[in-house]
């Protein structure tokens, strides 16, 4: 089972990112679950979402303690949350941003999802949309196939810019 923890802030689309990722994995023919952990807080508070991907049905509902991959959609949550907490030995980190220098000693990758969203003018109520571009980055990392990433986005969103943003993230992420 491959376990992914996504860190974001309420309203940034972390929950949708988890759902898109699960959908894409499902379109790859895998079993997948997305479980957001909802606190009682409002917009802007740090939120975590969990995605599990496996070849067999998934029966676990508890939170992910030891993720294989941590995705940080909003690097500012790192000031209040230890995003590396419980990361599996050999686990990886995907950061939204231009640098991974705050993450010593773990394999970390950065891609400027915010920049991509702004370039594609994917902005709702003043916030850039990160959940569709991040799918491109995850495809590049081999978590899901490019084809399923696209399908998942198209199933959930009609605006083609979302797919373009994912493609841009795929291009820009250096592995």
């Amino acid at each position, binding site marked *: 089972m491959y376990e992914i923890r996504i860190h974001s802030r309420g309203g940034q689309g972390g929950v949708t990112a988890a759902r898109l990722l*699960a959908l894409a994995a499902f379109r790859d023919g895998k079993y997948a679950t997305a479980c957001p952990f909802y606190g009682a807080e409002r917009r802007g508070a740090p939120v975590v979402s969990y995605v599990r991907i496996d070849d067999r049905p998934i029966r676990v509902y508890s939170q992910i303690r030891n993720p294989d991959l941590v995705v940080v959609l909003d690097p500012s949550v790192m000031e209040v949350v230890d995003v590396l907490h419980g990361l599996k030995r050999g686990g990886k980190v995907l950061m939204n941003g231009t640098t991974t220098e705050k993450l010593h000693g773990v394999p970390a990758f950065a891609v400027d999802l915010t920049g991509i969203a702004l370039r594609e003018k994917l902005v709702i109520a003043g916030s850039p949309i990160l959940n569709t571009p991040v799918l491109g980055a995850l495809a590049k990392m081999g978590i899901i196939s490019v084809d399923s990433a696209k399908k998942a986005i198209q199933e959930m969103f009609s605006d083609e810019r979302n797919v373009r943003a994912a493609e841009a993230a795929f291009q820009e992420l250096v592995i």
Partner: protein
Amino acid sequence: MLTIATGNKAVAAAVKEVRPDVIAAYPITPQTEIVEQIAEYVTSGELDSRYIPVESEHSAMAACIGASITGARTFTATSSHGLLYMHEMVNWAAGARLPIVMANVNRAIGPGWNVWAEHTDAFQERDTGWLQVYVSTVQEAYDTTLMAFRIAEHADVILPVMVNLDGFLLSHSMQSLDTLNAGDFVPPLHLPHAIDVLNPAGYGTLTGPDEHFRFRWEIEKSMRRSRKVIAETERDFAERFGRSYGVAEEYRYEDADVVVIAMGTLGKEAEVAVDLLRNEGVNAGSLRIRWLRPFPDFDLSGREVVVIDRDYSFGFGGVIAQSLMARQRVDLYSVIAGLGGQEVTYDDIAGFVRDRRPGTELWFGVNGDV
């Protein structure tokens, strides 16, 4: 059609498939997505139901009652405080023999406010004459909602059915979902005592002790008959659609020396614990209770039993543990866990089994003696 959905969306999709005539519901976390999805279906024209955006849950159930007695198919959904606020009408629906189907998204009860999973809400309605079923996956939420209509409306039952799913853990989790073309799996509703101006009758009229007593006995008889109807419905569902669940779902149960009993998502998590324990050489199995009313009969003799209750009856104990003990001579280890959404992992469950002390009760995570 194969897709992926939350537990809430799965319930709404099943409701769309059986097309109730009238839906009355009120929002409450974590059920709200069901109401919103239904409002969306009705607004877009995908679902031709009358949707009543009532001003409270008491009115939601009352509106379902008013619709149902005309012979209409009805649905509502709620959770926690909403369920408790409609309590009077919940009793009324069963007493009036109305086959209303309700989804309840299990959530703790305040004070203080807590929106996370706990079964105490529905357990407080367990003596009302409603059938109650608890599900553990998105697919099961969908399939069971379809079955609930058929069971409730069956001539041998004519009682309301409550479908329970764990708040957030299941209501907001996304998993694969195979939506069905139900065809005639749920036949048209025929309510024998529907209001008919050509055949006027008084409904709920002042009733003396003897008649009252007889009406209660009628409810109990239907409850007992419902076991057969549930089994038949499951069988037909399996034949048509290839899936079945049973009154309780067994996992590595046959040869198990120690059995973990739980409901809802904890029942699924327990299966993972069973695998862990088996690898350690412990002959464990699990039993996930689905139907709480009518309460299932199983034979647990000769096995050790660990019961996890995500509920509590103060001054009495875990409701499932106590109910099992009342029915059979088992020495069981009663674990109270997961109240108010407390995190319980498969490791924790394996721990309950390893450290079991039959005849005692553990409040998980609470240190201190009573």
